[in-house]
């Protein structure tokens, strides 16, 4: 995948990754599962760089900022000092699919924008672009010619 050169490209890649994972016309449950999977990958990628607490702080801050446009997401914060990815997924699952889809993408976008402010867009893209890259489908893997053939 080419490096996302602009903010718009990065945002587009995030939305595409989310859409690729939850498929067409998803229910809130599928969106929650896709969101949870992406966030776990982001957490796993970021923790060696900024530690678990660093990731949690960034996630909480992003959630706080996102709730300004999606107030219902704030319930994920209301009962915990530090919001968790799991509580977010539960909140998304309880929402309506359209709102959940928009809020999920908005939260990921906010997180990456915040990270880019801290460590720069280039490093942000280098760290997270592999996560936004589409996962090859099993059929594509099967039909792909082997290197030694």
């Amino acid at each position, binding site marked *: 995948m080419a490096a996302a050169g602009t903010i718009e490209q990065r945002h587009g890649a995030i939305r595409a990754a989310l859409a690729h994972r939850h498929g067409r016309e998803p229910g809130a449950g599928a969106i929650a599962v896709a969101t949870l999977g992406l966030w776990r990958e982001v957490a796993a990628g970021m923790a060696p760089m900024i*530690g678990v607490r*660093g990731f949690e702080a960034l996630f909480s801050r992003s959630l706080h900022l996102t709730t300004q446009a999606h107030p219902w997401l704030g319930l994920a914060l209301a009962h915990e000092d530090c919001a968790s990815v799991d509580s977010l997924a539960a909140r998304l699952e309880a929402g309506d699919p359209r709102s959940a889809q928009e809020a999920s993408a908005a939260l990921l976008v906010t997180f990456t924008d915040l990270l880019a402010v801290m460590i720069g867009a280039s490093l942000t893209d280098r760290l997270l672009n592999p996560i936004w890259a589409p996962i090859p489908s099993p059929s594509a893997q099967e039909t792909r010619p082997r290197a030694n053939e």
Partner: protein
Amino acid sequence: MEARGPTRRTRTARRKIGAADAPRESAWAGARTLAEREAAVLAGEEASQVRREAEDRREVAADRREAQADRREAATTLREQALLPREGKAKARSKARARAAAHLRRVNERLVLTTVEALTRTEAAEQVTAAMSQTAQHDCLTGLPNRALFADRLEQSLACALRQGHGVALLFLDLDHFKLVNDTLGHPAGDLLLRSIAGRLLASVRQTDTVCRLGGDEFLLLLSEIREVADAVGTARKVIAALALPHRLGAHRISVTVSIGISCFPGDGVDPEALVRAADLALYEAKRKGRDRVQVYARSLARPRGRRV
């Protein structure tokens, strides 16, 4: 180097000597004549000579092998000795790298935590600043602009009107018999009524207009762009109608009336003080005429008639 048992060379030599003696004894035992015996002796000596030479050569070869083995062993020892510190260095380098990575992660983590905390505190500070600004420029009971903010808006409106050539109107409002509400229903009910009045006033004017609470039951409306006095009068009547609808104050529902005095720029004054004074005089006249009405300022009102109530 540790002591070892009989070497392979010694054991082989012993075996060879035993094997070489066997034919000589056999030939001696088999000799029947002196000549045969002498020949046998000579043959034995010759065989011994050959054997000694072979043993010497074997001895030399064995010595060489042993020297080679010693050299190999020494080289192995040296290599082992050389490898030990190299492995140690590699382990130390690996540990140092792991320590550096952990340190970097801790530093990054602290950086992220402090940055997020700084962002959060900055946001809180901005909210406090905004709240202070709101408090400084707005009435705490109704949330409407206060006298200071109104004065600023009025100055800007007059400057804009002067430049663009349109009119500005000032509406001075005073509730009729508001004191009765406080006296009969209590001040909390009076506060509820003032909030209700504020909401209806805001709903009665354009977004570009300004509604201000001067204090008590007095309000000022700034209509920032009017074509003629009739526009202001129309808004004033709309306000009277809006405020006349019953207000729900807890368990009570009451209706109130209001008196309004109007002054216009530039006819009734060209500065804020003159306009406010003119609107106040018009309001006094509305009160004097029986309340619940609109009065437009006229120069005749400028004559002192006493205080309004």
